[in-house]
């Protein structure tokens, strides 16, 4: 979940109310955000880089606040403050005023068809007569960063460019060109580059924050680019803007463009930026439209921003029954208003509610989202705690019931239960137990972050040996077991993988203890009512000498039940022990126990 840093005093000033830390924490809890940490610029730097580096930094209190992942409208102090003001009943909803100039005056953006190959959509708007100061300017930049990391998925879905409109000459074009043909001076650079040279430059540059984004387009023969009518490069999305149109504290008119592969999200992002910063325009909450035309006719010409609220109709009966409360429609409307959701009762007798979800509440998809907001405003902790009357008869999974019983048998036999990971390293389940990998057995991972976790175990024995290696000083004999699942490839299942429940036990002492492992096998069989098949009758269990390379020659066998091989046992091969760094002899058994269920 995203976290934002806000200056406590500035937030309280915007809320026109002071809170103790506990009061503010409670407000957050009720509203569904979380006060994660209380710190300061100095403290953060001090923790990260040491006290000396933090000398002289501000000690103003900063609140780190955790925001739900779908509430993009709370990602900056402006949005957070206005949502909390409404929640506290200090404000009513905000209405946005969109000015659309006549067709000859409206600013235009033409989308060339080549963009279809790489990043097909663009939406834009203009904020007129805006007034920045240092804090507003920083918040404006921060919000774009936060949107880029969250809803924009590291700029893959949407990338935002904001420009000083007065440095540019509309109309604009959105094109896709071969990189070497795009020449411009990128933001915060002193010289011009062509885009082909720019990428290696960024790759090499130290601490360059743009590196992760290069891969989004670097394999494409054409790169997306926005030009004004004088062929000034506004931006090379999703990488960097041009230096030419850089926003300054003195900028008055802001041109916002969002290029995207996902049009829905581009609109949400554009609307969020407008909703948060149009408040600083000379006419607060006003925005000017731009017309976007697609050369390819992929879309009809569009006027952006499109900030019409989405209408949902629901009723009090649905909301009451889903929450388990009994309140009137008009009271629900009041609660919804506190959640920044304008609502009115359109049919008193049926309790029908009409809710207009504003562009800031893109998280509202269904009346159930409205129901949730009623519940939040009502207070989750004010709802009665009622146990459902649902009558059911419980049952266990047979394999789990059997596992519980079997674990009892093994621990009664003096063995200690261990719990090892299903994730392991490839060498542990093949090389270390002297078993070749045929490539048809194990499930492999493609992107493990931790070394040593690149495959799913195909047997439990390596985990037990790893445990023994870690317990070298423990009193002997060490007797351990595990009853757990292993994974195998199987192209007859839905996913191509299957799981089997295994039992493995291991005896480690100054002598191999093979007889004890055989006795344990007998115990398990006795407890399952399976007797020894001494007469080769095909009924019961018997052992057959094996050539399993994990075990020592002449001291190894396969275990058969009713003529079917269900497992192995033997003295663990000294080379295997050595591979796991086990210094004492061990005997082990491993059985597939699903046949007992």
């Amino acid at each position: 979940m995203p976290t934002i840093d806000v200056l406590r005093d500035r937030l309280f000033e915007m809320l026109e109310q002071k809170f103790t830390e506990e009061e503010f924490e409670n407000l957050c809890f009720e509203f569904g955000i979380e006060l994660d940490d209380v710190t300061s610029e100095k403290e953060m730097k001090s923790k990260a880089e040491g006290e000396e580096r933090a000398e002289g930094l501000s000690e103003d209190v900063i609140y780190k606040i955790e925001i739900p992942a779908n509430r993009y409208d709370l990602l900056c102090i402006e949005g957070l403050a206005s949502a909390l003001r409404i929640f506290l009943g200090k404000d009513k909803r905000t209405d946005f005023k969109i000015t659309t100039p006549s067709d000859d005056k409206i600013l235009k953006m033409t989308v060339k068809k080549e963009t279809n190959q790489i990043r097909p959509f663009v939406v834009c708007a203009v904020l007129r007569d805006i007034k920045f100061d240092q804090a507003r300017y920083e918040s404006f930049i921060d919000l774009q960063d936060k949107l880029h990391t969250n809803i924009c998925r590291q700029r893959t879905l949407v990338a935002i460019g904001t420009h000083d409109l007065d440095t540019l000459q509309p109309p604009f074009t959105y094109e896709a060109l071969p990189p070497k043909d795009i020449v411009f001076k990128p933001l915060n650079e002193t010289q011009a580059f062509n885009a082909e040279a720019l990428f290696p430059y960024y790759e090499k540059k130290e601490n360059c924050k743009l590196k992760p984004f290069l891969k989004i387009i670097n394999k494409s023969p054409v790169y997306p680019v926005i030009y004004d009518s004088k062929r000034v490069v506004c931006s090379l999305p999703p990488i960097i803007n041009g230096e030419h149109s850089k926003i300054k504290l003195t900028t008055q008119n802001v041109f916002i463009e969002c290029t995207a592969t996902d049009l829905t999200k581009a609109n949400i992002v554009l609307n969020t930026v407008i909703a948060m910063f149009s408040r600083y325009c000379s006419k607060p909450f006003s925005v000017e439209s731009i017309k976007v035309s697609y050369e390819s006719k992929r879309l009809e010409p569009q006027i952006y921003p499109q900030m019409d609220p989405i209408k949902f109709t629901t009723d009090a009966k649905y909301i009451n029954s889903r929450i388990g409360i009994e309140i009137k429609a008009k009271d629900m409307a009041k609660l919804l208003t506190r959640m920044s959701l304008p609502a009115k009762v359109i049919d008193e007798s049926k309790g029908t509610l009409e809710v207009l979800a504003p562009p800031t509440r893109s998280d509202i998809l269904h009346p159930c989202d409205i129901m949730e907001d009623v519940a939040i405003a009502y207070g989750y902790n004010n709802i009665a705690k009622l146990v459902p009357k649902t009558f059911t008869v419980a049952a266990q999974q047979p394999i789990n019931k059997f596992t519980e019983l079997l674990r009892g048998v093994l621990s009664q036999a003096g063995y200690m239960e261990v719990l090892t990971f299903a994730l392991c390293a490839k060498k542990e389940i093949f090389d270390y137990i002297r078993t070749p990998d045929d490539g048809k057995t194990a499930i492999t991972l493609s992107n493990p972050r931790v070394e040593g976790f690149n495959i799913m175990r195909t047997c439990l024995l390596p985990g037990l040996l790893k445990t023994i290696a870690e317990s070298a000083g423990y009193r002997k004999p060490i007797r351990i077991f595990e009853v757990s699942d292993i994974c195998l490839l199987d192209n007859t299942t839905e996913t191509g993988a299957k799981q089997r429940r295994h039992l493995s036990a291991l005896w480690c002492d100054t002598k191999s203890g093979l007889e004890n492992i055989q006795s344990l096998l007998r115990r398990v069989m006795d407890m399952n009512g399976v007797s020894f098949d001494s007469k080769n009758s095909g009924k019961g269990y018997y052992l057959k000498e094996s050539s399993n390379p994990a075990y020592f020659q002449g001291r190894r066998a396969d275990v058969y039940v009713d003529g079917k091989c269900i497992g192995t046992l033997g003295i663990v091969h000294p080379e295997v022990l050595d591979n796991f760094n086990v210094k004492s002899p061990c005997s082990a058994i491993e059985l597939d126990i699903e046949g007992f269920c």
Partner: protein
Amino acid sequence: RDISWEFPGAGFAQCAGRVPEMSVDSKAKEQLEAKLLSHIAAGHDVKNTIAFAAESGVNHPNKAKLLNDVVKSLKASRIVEAKQVNKQTVILSKEGKRWVKEGSPEYQIFMALEEPMDKKSLLNKMKSLGGAANPGMSECMKRRWISLDKETKLIRRLIEPSTVKDEVREQLLKVQKGESLDVKVLKILKKRKMTGTKKETWYEVSKGKEFTVERKALATDLTQELMKGDAWKKVEFKEYLMTTEPKEALVGALHPLMKVRTEFRQILLEMGFSEMPTNNFVESSFWNFDTLFQPQQHPARDAHDTFFLGQPQKCLKLIDEYVERVKTMHEKGGSGSIGYRYDWSLEESKKNILRTHTTAVSSRMLYKLAQEKEFTPRKYFSIDRVFRNESLDATHLAEFHQVEGLVADRGLSLSNLIGTIKTFFTRIGIDDVKFKPAYNPYTEPSMEIFGYSKELKKWIEIGNSGMFRPEMLAPMGLPEDVSVIAWGLSLERPTMIKYGYKNIRDLFGHKVKLDLIYNNPLCRY
């Protein structure tokens, strides 16, 4: 641990008890006992058993220790009175012994400095002193035996060899003889690692109440032999110390986390919840995410959080009609929803992963339920492993256990969910719960569960919960008036709190200490 274990398991007994042996030790003990008793019988007390053993003429390398054992046993039979004496004595270290033989390092350095020379050459000449060379040189300077000429950088003698007295060697000699020395001097010698300490325990021995030269044989235990007739009445039993801590029993044990799993299963079964089959660590993105209305660009579906598979890379089968309904719900919505409005990709949903939550199983079970002819209410639970592509630390593992419960019935409310959660947590010892609004792509409303931990004395986050979204249930084909309430938590967290573990790696994996498993108390709430 040097404990000989006798293991009572039928068929598995490996180590018998130690075979008693009439060893060299026992013989020496007999001799020592005879000498000691006759010495005391002659009217002499023994002031120091170590000294007595040394002069006893008995030939055994450990005779002093053996004699102490004899005294303990005689004392137990009240034949002698014995007082234990513990003493620490200062003795020469290996180095100390060397300096007694060769002279102290400073003395050796001084004697070696026949001609003035620079520091490097002097140190080189005194290489055999090892680490003692540098401190020795400083000592010479401190004693004004030698000095460094600042201009020439040469070290030269300040006094004649005949006037030099090797004081340190004399002190060491005194230590060797056991003579007393000033505390300050002793401190310096110790600091220079020339001396060490030796701990000694001996007894002062005198006649006891039941003194006898010829010891009566005492019975050590009630044996089958002694039960014949009334033989046990005629023997005397050796004293037995009843109040010492008993030895550990050699038995098997269950793993703490699995004990908590057993208890949770029990509680959920008692609450009428049926267990779901969870034997699918490998799951398609479709069942793990898409069926749960989790959009394909959701951060949880990133390679940073989820394990994708090398093989089997893609799932082999999906239910076509259901896939179509899920796709439509994501792209266009339906059943009152406006959907996410993006292009849904079948390829993306076919990607196999290690399941990130057992909610993938719940989804399969609810789909199955929806295919039944007539809806019947269900209560389900599961406890099994889930996988996250995380870096490991004290609170995060790449695999852990998730506990999940759900109720599917007509007309269930948020109030029912809160009631169910409250009931469950009360059963595991958390009586106070409160709820915080949260976001989760597949539940609405969503609530984080906070519980007051009596162990930690504070409110902590203990789980997540919510009502499954209509966008998840409608494509399955569940009737519109059926709601599904669900909650989940990890198994590890409550176990850590219950048993006071600070690090999750002490609880799960091959590095867990066997002692912790062995000594872990019963789990009951």
